[in-house]
């Protein structure tokens, strides 16, 4: 393997990792705060891409990118809050909420995907990339879009991290995820925080969808494959800290890039799933997780 190939594999891995990090962060936000797994996350990704396309594409409204993205974020946050009220909130107090949430979010995901199909039709679409420039760095070929993606994702993750760490609602959300009862006793508005967490998760999914929409073709089920990858990432890294799925995302991204090179594009995902199952067998709490006995 010559150094150029090696570097371009690493480059591909980092870009994959950045996308996975964005998706996995949204997923783990809901998981840690609400204690449920949101299977509609993949559909959120697709929805974000379609909404952004609707605002920005020359075939639709044709707005400039920045307002389109901002408005998409707002729409996604709202969709997240609404779906939280429809799919999760009614069952919050049930003892089998984990299973029920799986069922309702799966159903919600089916509704969203088929809704997309009804509204925008089956024809593939693509969002215009923000920039079309290209850069050659010591023999390494990079598009400015790729650089922008890496920078933006890192900035978004940093922003979410700062929000969780320093802002009042962010800190409240972490408190709720650590101990719901205690947080409630201290006067935190838990239902509101749950709604915010769900909305924020949908927002990050929407952003991931926009990035995906610029580099791949869009179709209603475009989120299901990234969702599976995000699932692998979250399990692989655990959700002990905000940063653990991010590290895991880059590891998985690199692993996928290398195994695609070595085993081919078809077998690479299988390698990831095998890795995940092995991790679960050895360390069910995830690579960066702390062992906790759950009842």
């Amino acid at each position: 393997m010559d150094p150029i190939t090696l570097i371009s594999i690493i480059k591909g891995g980092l870009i994959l990792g950045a996308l996975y990090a964005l998706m996995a962060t949204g997923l783990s936000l809901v998981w840690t705060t609400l204690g449920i797994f949101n299977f509609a996350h993949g559909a959120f990704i697709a929805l974000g891409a379609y909404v952004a396309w609707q605002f920005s594409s020359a075939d639709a409204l044709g707005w400039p990118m920045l307002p389109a993205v901002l408005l998409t974020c707002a729409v996604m946050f709202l969709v997240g809050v609404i779906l939280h009220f429809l799919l999760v909130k009614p069952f919050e107090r049930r003892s089998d909420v984990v299973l029920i949430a799986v069922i309702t979010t799966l159903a919600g995901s089916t509704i969203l995907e088929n809704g997309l199909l009804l509204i925008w039709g089956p024809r593939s679409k693509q969002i215009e990339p923000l920039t079309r420039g290209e850069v050659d760095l010591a023999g390494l070929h990079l598009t400015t879009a790729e650089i922008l993606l890496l920078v933006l994702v890192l900035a978004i993750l940093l922003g979410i991290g700062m929000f969780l760490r320093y802002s009042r609602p962010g800190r409240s959300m972490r408190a709720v995820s650590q101990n719901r009862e205690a947080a409630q006793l201290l006067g935190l508005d838990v239902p509101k925080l749950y709604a915010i967490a769900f909305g924020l998760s949908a927002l990050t999914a929407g952003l991931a969808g926009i990035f995906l929409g610029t580099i791949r073709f869009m179709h209603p089920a475009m989120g299901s494959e990234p969702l599976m990858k995000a699932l692998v990432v979250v399990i692989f890294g655990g959700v002990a800290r905000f940063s653990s799925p991010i590290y895991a995302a880059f590891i998985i991204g690199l692993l996928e890039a290398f195994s695609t090179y070595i085993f081919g594009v078809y077998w690479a995902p299988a390698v990831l799933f095998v890795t995940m199952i092995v991790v679960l067998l050895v360390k069910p709490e995830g690579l960066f997780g702390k062992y906790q006995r759950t009842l």
Partner: protein
Amino acid sequence: MRYDPPLQKTQGLWPLLLAVVALVAYPFVFEATYFRHVMILAFVFAIVATSWDFSLGFGGLFNFAHVALFAVGIYTYAILAKTLGVSPWLAILAGGFTSAFVALLISIPVLRLDGIYVILVTIAFSQLLYLIVISASSVTGGTSGMVTLPTLTINGYRLSGDGRIGYYFVGLGLLAANILFLYLVTRSRLGRATVALKDNKYYAIARGISEARTRALTLMASAVFTGLAGAFYAAYLRVASPDAFGMGFLTLLLSILLMGGAGTIWGPVIAAFGISVISEWLSGFGAWQNIVISVAIILVVVLYPGGLWAAIQEIREAVDNVRTGTLARLRRNRGRAEREALTGATERMIRTRFAEIAVADTGEAEKPALLFCHGNSACKEAFYKQFRSMSDTHRVIAFDLPGHGVSGNGDPETTYNVAAYAEIAEAVLADCGVDKVAVFGWSLGGYVALELAARGNVEVTALAIAGTPPLAVVPEDFGNGYNPDSHLVLAGKQYFSRQEARDYGNSATAPISADSAFMHRNLPRTDGRARVYMMTKISIIDWPRQMRMLAEGRIPFAILNGSDDPFLNHGYIARLNYGSIWRGAPQDIMGGRHAPFFNKPDAFDLAFYAFLRDAESGSDATFRPSRMAATA
């Protein structure tokens, strides 16, 4: 506690026979291929959904790779029958085997995990299988799948001929075999262990159930017919496509399972037929098909978590409530003279805050009062022999518990429990104007008597029980105090078949004779909810308070069990700590059964009279601490 009557003795037999006749007749009535096609799909979905229910509903194992097990059956058939040229029938059998083997593989990562992790790992596993199928395109055909698979034949006759009638009956047979298999498995040791692990994992493990082995076996048992159904499905449609791994198929099966009702066998079977028809009908509407099914899933989970099966049960319960309530109201007037002749007491109805209660009272306020509390599914006339023999010296009072005899039915949540029964006994005594009373309680009535005395709102001058092991800790002491090899488990069963009613009546009171026939006639009147709620609410009673009362021994107390009581563990009752018990130990009525006052009235009356006399004189010689209390 084992009481599993064979299917032919339960109430499910006739609906089942009707369904079988209807399904066998169906293809001869509906000859169009399409109608048969929908039913064949329904058979397959019913098999997969019920099998899934064994691991998910019965075992609480959220195996989301179940659909992948179905796909394993499909591809096993496709590869064996087409690529390798194996006989299609053998290939179908092999589908069951490979599916069970894959289930064993899935169980390995699942063994150590709980809750949501099981869901995630099984989904990952199913994705892994999907990716392998997609990737190994030289064997499986990749994303385009395999087509023109061999069809099933018998001696050269193609099952798809004559409007697919052959496939119809093979599918029906497979479904019947699957139901029989699940019916037997859920009643086997494995099935009980599976349910026990779901209900109370750590207790089950402490009782020696291996979690790992049970999980693996549960998953394998749920896989066998899933694989067979997959292979049959492939043979029928002659196509193996990776779509079988998809979320659409998963959602469809999940909706069948949930709408039918998780944790039941019949619910998903019924739902499979309904949803297959609806789904086929909706398939012309494209994307709307999945949207409608998904909305329906959410609505069922929100509004009707128990599914169709729960709805059927609720209707049945409402009907039964009307039946028993009407029966009680009718008998209140029509049989009254007969009942009063039997007991020699006058019967009147009193209002309590729980229900209308029928009270038999011999009146005569100057005599010492004596209250009798009857047992589960019985009535106050059970004591008619004591009404006759003791009314000369005592004012004898007995009442029908709510939901029993000619009393009205009550709100099950608040009424059908021992604490409410004790409060009703207080209300009855207040209505009679009695403030000092000797109490005798039989079986469930024994707990009512104990609770009445422990509450201390009424002065109990003497307390005797029969057929009642006092409890300290439930459910442990329930297991210790009763003999599990009896019809006891019926005491908490909502609906009795004729056989069960006879069994329970025979064991609880007496085998049917001219003397006991009225008790057997009364039994079906009992509100089934009274049995269920009483049993499930057994843990809300302050049992330790009763035990403390018995250990303190301030109230003259006697135990007068039948020596041949089939329900009791006599050793447990003898070993308890009684601070003061008549003659120092439980006194057995020789030859008496669960209702000694009914089976051996003379011996019982002799003992009971002696106890009442001693209680009145309060002689320390006859009331001694039990052996346990003396050594303590």
